[in-house]
């Protein structure tokens, strides 16, 4: 792949952001990872609104990693909007959360999550998860055209 796939990470916890990014580094993955800190920002980024209107700096991602529990617009709302917006709905969305709750799982899949992953507690766990994400979603999986 000439251009490594671009990932949008939607996460409000600073330490989880660092761990995730560090895990990508540890796994020696070259993906370009853009980070937004809440639901509002995530939607703005994806729709190219406000400060994100320059696609050369804020390109359309090939994959979205989405936390559920966020202040304001939460992960479910973001997912619902993505899946009901024509230009966004085919981008794979992976829920990355610490909740194993039945209700959360059911709702996520109901509104169109493509995958549901549990945030590992250990750093090794994180590294393992991002490796597997890369393996599956960028090597094995074939995206919809234009994604």
């Amino acid at each position, binding site marked *: 792949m000439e251009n490594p796939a671009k990932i949008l990470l939607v996460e409000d916890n600073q*330490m989880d952001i660092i*761990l995730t990014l560090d895990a990508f580094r540890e796994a020696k993955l070259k993906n370009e990872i853009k980070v937004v800190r809440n639901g509002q920002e995530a939607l703005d980024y994806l729709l190219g609104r406000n400060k994100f209107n320059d696609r050369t700096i804020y390109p359309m991602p090939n994959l979205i990693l989405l936390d559920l529990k966020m202040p304001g617009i939460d992960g479910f709302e973001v997912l619902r909007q993505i899946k009901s917006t024509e230009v966004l709905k085919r981008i794979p969305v992976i829920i990355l959360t610490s909740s*194993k709750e039945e209700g959360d799982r059911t709702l996520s899949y109901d509104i169109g999550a493509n995958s549901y992953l549990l945030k590992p*507690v250990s750093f090794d766990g994180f590294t393992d998860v991002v490796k597997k994400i890369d393996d599956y979603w960028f090597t094995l999986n074939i995206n919809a055209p234009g994604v």
Partner: protein
Amino acid sequence: MKRFVFKNQAIKTKLVLIIMSTSFIAVIAALITYISFDMAGIKNDLKKNALLNAELVGQYSVAPLLFGYSDEARDILSKLYSIPDIQDACLYSALSSEIIASYQKTPDKSFVFPSLQNESIIFSKGYLHIYHVITFKEKYCGAIYLKISAIALKDRFQKNLLVSGIIIFLLFLIVYFISSRLQKLISVPILKLAEVSENLSISQDFSNRLYYSGNDEIGILYQQFDNLMFQISQRQIERDIAEAKLNTTNEQLHIELTERKQREEELKQSEGTIRSLFAAAPVGIGILKDRKQTSINSYWCKILGYTEENLLGKSTRMLYENDNEWNRIGEVLYTDLKGKGISSVESRMIRSDGTLIYVILTIAPIQQDNPSSGYLGIIHDITGRKKAEEALRISEERYRFLFEQNPVPMLIYDRNTFKLLAINEVFINHYGYSSDELLSMSLPDLYPPEEKERIVELAKTLQSRAYVGEWHHIRKDGSVITIIVTSNDLEYMGRECRIAVIIDITDRKKAEEEIQKLNQTLEYNVAERTAQLVSINKELESFSYSISHDLRAPLRAIFGFSQILSRRHRESLNEEGRQYMDYIVEASVRMEQLINDLLNYSRLGRKSLDMRPLSLNKIIDTVYADFKQRLEEIQARFAVDNDLPVISGDESLLRQIFTNLIENAITYRRNDVPLEIGIHSETVSEGYLLKIVDNGIGIPREYWEKIFKIFQRLHSEEAYPGTGIGLATVKKAVSLLNGTVWVDSVVGQGSTFIISLPPNKNQNGKPS
């Protein structure tokens, strides 16, 4: 086909047949004679003609014969073709007797001319063969042979037969016509005679007369027959008169006989009736003369217990207790009899076995105007009736006692008028009315106004059955009591009544109502408390869930960064720093385990149950797959019955249960022996028992219940790592499946966890 028998034919047919056969024989004879003569003549003509032809040809052939000119001779013979009847001819020479010339009308090589024979004419096979000697001037010149067809003869014979046939047929018709006319002259009178005699034998009427005009033999026959008939008819008349007389006498005799028979029958019947009455009557009947038993029936003997021989001829004194009684009976009966002709008296008699019986004695003279003919005596045993009367009296007394002395109120009312007819002492005391007041009241008067109508409606339907019901009564002081009344039919003083037993349950009712009230309050309180508890429980569960959940984020930071530090910056730390960093990582691992266990535990309470039939073997297979590597590493034996039941349960709960129990067995294994885990099942009446058996360190009895409580641990974290939540989770999951779990263990030998699950009743069960 019926055989034709001449003698059975009608006389008409016989006459016709006789005439026709006679004529037929005559005609046949005439025709045969005629045809014979005719044929003989024709034959003679044929011979003459042939001889003439032979002579003629012979004379022509003299010269060739004499000179042996066979060619000339053949010429002459060939002239014969003008006579068509000549078939073959030849000439024999005088010298050699050889054939010198021959002729054939139709040449036939196979025909052989016969050798010379003497002068002769022969008929053979439809041909005439002629051998004729030819002489010239009385000198033998040779001979000639001619074969002439006799077909003319045959034709003539056939013609004759045809003509004869026609003649016979015509004659036959004529004869039949004539004979069938003529036969009537004889047959008609004979047939008539036959007809008359046949009619006579049917009608038996000989008064008809016969007439015939002729004086021939038939006339004489008619005359004789007529005379005979006249005489028979005379005799018949005489006989009829005699017969009529005889009949009258017979009838009178018959009537007399029938009447006598009837009288005899009546007499016999009446005697039979009396005899069977005597024998079969269910009363003792005897004939008494001078108070001696001269004849008695079997019932008489039966009543008194004697055989007939014991009693016959004996005085009736033996049947009584003493002389006085015997004399009294005699006086009463016989004195009484003088006025009425029949009398009876009640007395007692002694049976053969000494027992006393009550009897009614009845006597009547056999002949009213002649007492010396004896008396008819009847004994009627009334002991049974006497006893029944006595029993009834005792029973009535007993019931009266039961009624009067009964400790509960009782009453008797008329079923038709509802009037109260009797009440017992207790009733009077309980209700406060006087006896007189009650006896003037009727049933509805006892009831409160709202029940009066209903009790009357009900009472109308009560008949031939017992009734039990709850009602209210009003006492004289106006107080209302609740009663249970039991009633049934009773005949009392000749009336259709009902007897009722009344139990006052007013106090009991009150007590019951109070208990019910208390119960309701209690139920309400319990429900309220349960609801409160459920709600508190929920709150607690969700509280512990969010705590554990929120604990994860900081833990991730501690764990994640300490791992990064211990990996990437290990070298820049001194020994102590490295040691502490490892402690942080280790603590993080335990913390994560603790949080996971807590989350699992609290999640159970909020989980929706998905109950469906599940194969336990399948579930354990999946769980085993997770442990396979670890179990192999420690060389553990894992044995599962392969016939575990299919039960109704929630898959994730069951997996949780088995995961935790296996995890537990691994944690608390003994170090000196390889671990053995066994899973077995039993079907019992209450459902299923699942047993998870290990050979671990075991649990002392005092901890058997404690271990199922959350955070209860028996061992230090260092000795056996664990969170103290696993078994609590098992207990909770089992109880969510409506089951129970307990442990049985021997320290140092192992533990058996027993799970009891209910049978598969509600497969679609929803969580309660």
